[in-house]
């Protein structure tokens, strides 16, 4: 269980957090959604005892992260954006080191390392230095390292940033099975898709403030749910396609959002199959047809009236 009230943290003239409240009930996943520089990582670092807040309080399983930091560290696992494992050590040596530091004993540390290597499909690479690992393997080792002590509260700071879609899905499966086993997870992400796939609730933060807190469905209702995008093979079919899409959509007109691509907001999951059936009946061939959740930019635009990347130097990453 994670509870935080009024967290404030200032670095020089940068006000990273300006009074953030977070709550994650036991056994649930909270998605903390926000662009780069919103304060997500600062919040995670405070909750995982790496930083002391300037004001506000936070508790993990009822233990204060400042006054009872030592005991908090016994029940948390932290996976950062960058791989926090030793590059010169092998995967196995890394996990055994953390097992030793977590008082599992020599045999216990060895057994736990073997289990995790197996579970994360790293056994074949176990005796190679971590610096030879691919990005996805490194991320898995990093997550494995944070699970050595079987923590019941897990912080995942942008666990899939930089991973390709297939690897991302794998990571999602891992998170799901952790929760099935009773873990409480706080996950930060820049992707609404990811928060929607994993989280029981989503807190959106921007400039160190919470600007929305809702269930994924509630948030999607506010920001406009999903968008159906279709690209007819023959551009001459744009008009009849638009007419069909407007009928299956939520009543709004289909717009040409990019050259040759039509988009319409939809509320019902059946919209995809229905539009396929209607397009087929009308004899219209398409080269592209997909259902999208709003991007972070769109979420922010709806919530704040400006784009997330407006004041961000890393625009491309945010839009990714």
């Amino acid at each position: 269980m994670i509870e935080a009230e009024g967290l404030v943290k200032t670095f020089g003239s940068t006000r990273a957090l300006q009074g953030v409240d977070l709550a994650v009930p036991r056994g649930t996943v909270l998605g903390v959604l926000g662009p780069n520089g919103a304060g997500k990582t600062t919040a995670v670092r405070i909750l995982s005892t790496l930083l002391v807040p300037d004001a506000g309080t936070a508790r993990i399983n009822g233990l204060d992260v400042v006054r009872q930091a030592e005991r908090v560290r016994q029940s948390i696992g932290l996976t950062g954006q960058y791989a926090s494992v030793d590059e010169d050590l092998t995967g196995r040596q890394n996990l055994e080191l953390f097992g030793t530091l977590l008082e599992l004993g020599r045999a216990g540390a060895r057994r736990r390392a073997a289990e995790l290597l197996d579970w994360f499909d790293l056994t074949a690479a176990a005796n190679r230095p971590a610096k030879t690992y691919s990005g996805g393997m490194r991320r898995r080792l990093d997550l494995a390292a944070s699970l050595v002590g079987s923590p019941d509260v897990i912080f995942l700071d942008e666990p899939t940033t930089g991973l390709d879609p297939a690897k991302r899905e794998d990571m999602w499966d891992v998170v799901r099975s952790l929760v099935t086993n009773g873990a409480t997870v706080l996950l930060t992400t820049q992707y609404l898709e990811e928060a929607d796939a994993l989280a029981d609730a989503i807190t959106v933060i921007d400039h160190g403030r919470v600007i929305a807190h809702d269930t994924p469905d509630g948030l999607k209702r506010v920001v406009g749910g999903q968008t159906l995008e279709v690209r007819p093979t023959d551009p001459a079919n744009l008009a009849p396609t638009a007419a069909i899409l407007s009928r299956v959509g939520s009543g709004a007109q289909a717009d040409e959002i990019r050259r040759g691509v039509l988009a319409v907001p939809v509320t019902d999951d059946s919209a995809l199959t229905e539009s396929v059936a209607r397009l087929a009946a009308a004899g219209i061939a398409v080269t592209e047809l997909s259902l999208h959740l709003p991007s972070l930019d769109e979420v922010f635009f709806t919530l704040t009236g400006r784009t997330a990347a407006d004041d961000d130097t890393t625009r491309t990453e945010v839009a990714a």
Partner: protein
Amino acid sequence: MSTLTGTPPRTGPKLSTVVAQPRPLRLLRHSLALAKRSLIKTWRTPEALIDVTLQPVLFLVIFVYVFGGAVAGSTHDYLQYLLPGILAQTIATGCIAIGVNLNTDIAKGIFDRFRSLPVPRSAPLVGAVFGDVVRYVIVTVSTLAIGYLLGFRVESGPVQALAGCLLAVLFALCLSWLPVYVGMKVRTPGAVQGVMFALIMPLSFASNVFVAAGTLPGWMQAVVTVNPLTHLVTAMRGLFLGTPVGNHVWWTLLWCAGFVAVFMPLALRAYRRRV
């Protein structure tokens, strides 16, 4: 990746049940585990040992054959005089590396990991210092070995010579807390190198490493007399060559205690503040 959909293994003791051990024991065990990490890293990057293996060879050969005749009348006499000094000097410069390495290391995610674990805060630094023992043993052995090839001979006995080696390694471990402190305090690895060089260079030359203090002007003699390296070198000369040791072993140990007492708390404080 198909295995990932299974249940995560959760065997092994629950953490809260196993951490109730006395703190000093935990600190020692955790530091040793982290020292092992340093050792593995040293083993993987043997080129990082160049500073402590090549430098004593170069200094011995150059100083013995260039200055030996002028300073001591014969190269052999000067080698006998110089070797303990070169050993001390190499150890003093060799400990710069720990500050540079920690400065690089601390910026990496692994230190966040350490700090998020129920590990005593000082363990990563203490572990790094322990891990460097191997470096200092290598310096000592390789310097003595090259010395023997050039004609250096221990004139006391094996026990005294061993005591001299141990004193040198102990001195290095204690002096290490100075570069560790600088490494925590200074922003970049290059700056650590610069600051430490500015401290160690005068320390090793304003001593009796190369020449006896008696030949120096009065004010310089005063500096040389209090220099901790002078005490170490005099003690080692006594232990290797059987010459009188005087109080120099005690002075050396006192300096060792002083380095730890002053720079270890400073280093730990700087480490805690540096996030």
